[in-house]
């Protein structure tokens, strides 16, 4: 056979180079090893650790404790009650705003303003909101001035404080992501629909939305995963032992108050599994929709 004689003449080095492996490819190794050692290994370690509880009761003791103690398993529902509405609201609001903003020439100012809460982070937003939403803060004061309400709203140290702070930090993220998808769609497609007499709603419903669905599904997943991991604002702005006792608080308490790292790892794994479930559901639903080019053209 000719191919075997050809291969005999080439050294191992050349063979590897033919497959794309040479000195340059090896440059990827340090980063791969780093991610394996500092990200993958801890995950596996944590997974195994969660099956080696310090308490009695066999391998699954941590998981049994979690799912039999309402103080622990209710954190999943508490977190979902925050994360799901926040994600739905963010995605639903991001689409119309992004559809408008893409038509504006000078988007830079708005996008810069919206990057602020993402950059400053949840701790600073929580601190600002304690002042701003508090009973003497500007928010209640303005509403009272406008005679919308007669006494200050209670918006801190409860569910709504955390909800609003999540919206403030998560909506800009969803919006910027959605904007990058919306601007990626060829404007010619919408113009063509308009030429054929489609109304604004029809253009959105039958042209833009089908093209946006794959991107929106990703935006939904990334937003949800972020909202589900809410931590500092749930402590600072919420009622961390009541309605906003989210799952990350339970995990942090297990680790740093009870020093039970096996339980903390178990909670972190449960957290990861819930996130994964929601993401998988969204991705399965996404596959039912159209996937293809957003750039228009022939064919």
């Amino acid at each position: 056979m000719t191919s075997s004689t050809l291969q005999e003449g080439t050294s191992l080095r050349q063979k590897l180079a033919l497959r794309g492996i040479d000195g340059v490819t090896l440059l990827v190794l340090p980063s791969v090893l780093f991610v394996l050692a500092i990200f993958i290994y801890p995950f596996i370690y944590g997974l195994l650790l969660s099956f080696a509880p310090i308490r009695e009761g066999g391998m699954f003791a941590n998981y049994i404790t979690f799912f039999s103690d309402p103080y622990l398993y209710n954190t999943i529902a508490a977190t979902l009650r925050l994360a799901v509405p926040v994600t739905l609201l963010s995605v639903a609001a991001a689409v119309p705003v992004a559809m408008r903003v893409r038509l504006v020439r000078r988007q830079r100012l708005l996008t810069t303003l919206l990057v602020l809460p993402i950059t400053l982070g949840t701790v600073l937003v929580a601190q600002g909101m304690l002042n701003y939403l508090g009973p003497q803060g500007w928010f209640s004061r303005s509403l009272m001035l406008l005679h919308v309400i007669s006494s200050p709203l209670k918006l801190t140290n409860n569910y709504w404080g955390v909800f609003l702070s999540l919206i403030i930090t998560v909506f800009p993220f969803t919006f910027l992501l959605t904007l990058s998808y919306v601007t990626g769609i060829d404007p010619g497609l919408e113009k063509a629909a308009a030429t054929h007499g489609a109304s604004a709603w029809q253009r959105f419903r039958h042209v833009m939305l089908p093209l946006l669905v794959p991107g929106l599904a990703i935006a939904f997943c990334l937003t949800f995963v972020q909202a589900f991991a809410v931590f500092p604002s749930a402590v600072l702005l919420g009622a961390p032992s009541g309605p906003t006792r989210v799952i990350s608080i339970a995990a942090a308490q297990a680790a740093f108050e009870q020093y039970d790292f096996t339980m903390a790892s178990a909670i972190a794994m449960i957290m990861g599994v819930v996130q994964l479930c929601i993401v998988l559901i969204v991705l399965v639903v996404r596959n039912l929709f159209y996937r293809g080019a957003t750039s228009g053209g022939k064919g």
Partner: protein
Amino acid sequence: MIRDTTIGAKLWITAVWAVTIFFVLNVLAIIATVIVSSLGTRWLGTWLPNAFTLNWYASAWQEFQLGPVLLVTFQIAFTVVALSGLLGVTAAYAMARRDFPGKKLVMFLFLLPLLVPPITFGIPLATVLYQFNVGGTFWGVVLANLVPTVPFVILVMIPFIEQIDPKVEAAARVFGAGTFKLFVHVLMPMLIPGILASLLLVLVRTVAMFELTFLTAGPTSQTLVVSLYYAVFASGVRAVQSIDAMAVIYMVSTLVWLLVALRFVNPTQIVARGNQSSSAH
């Protein structure tokens, strides 16, 4: 641009803008309350404080020992920047230039730390770091912060490197440049804008990264944002204005870098990293 002239369309457009402006106003007001409060003497039940003063900054600086905290913050941030630059740019070069078996898997490996939220992988990571006695130290915080930043640099840099014509490198090779010389004299000058942008964003992210630092920091390796969290958490012990002064110092230390970074990148790039790199193919 298509013009919609029906009343319904106009109402809808107005409503969308009203919601957007309301949101932005609230964001600005949240930031403004912190600044105003940090400058005010006494602020109870009025629109603005009675009088203005700068004293809270001095007291916050002493109370929260901001000197050492800021020093540690920037030591950590710049170490993370240097290491993630070194690891990220070299890996991005290999990813952009070579097709090798398992490349998709490697790409997925780099995407994972950006998709999983810090608090989820932070707890097992902190456990491992404490096991190896790095938890609570300077290097523990640096290692933890590198987990999302190395992949971030890789994903931002891949499209930058792909833009450069491989013929330029081939020409340098013909004239006898080794890989190191090629990097320093040919690639680096062309990649500087991309490297600068991605590293500035890494700096902003590291200064603002709460979860990972919170989980891995000890008393001597706390960054500013973690100190701020503890201050707000134990508020009541200290004057609100003093905490707000600290918050303003934190804000300045983050926003300076953001403003510099925004000269090089579009704000959408800060969030749309995966999308950005995939659209460049």
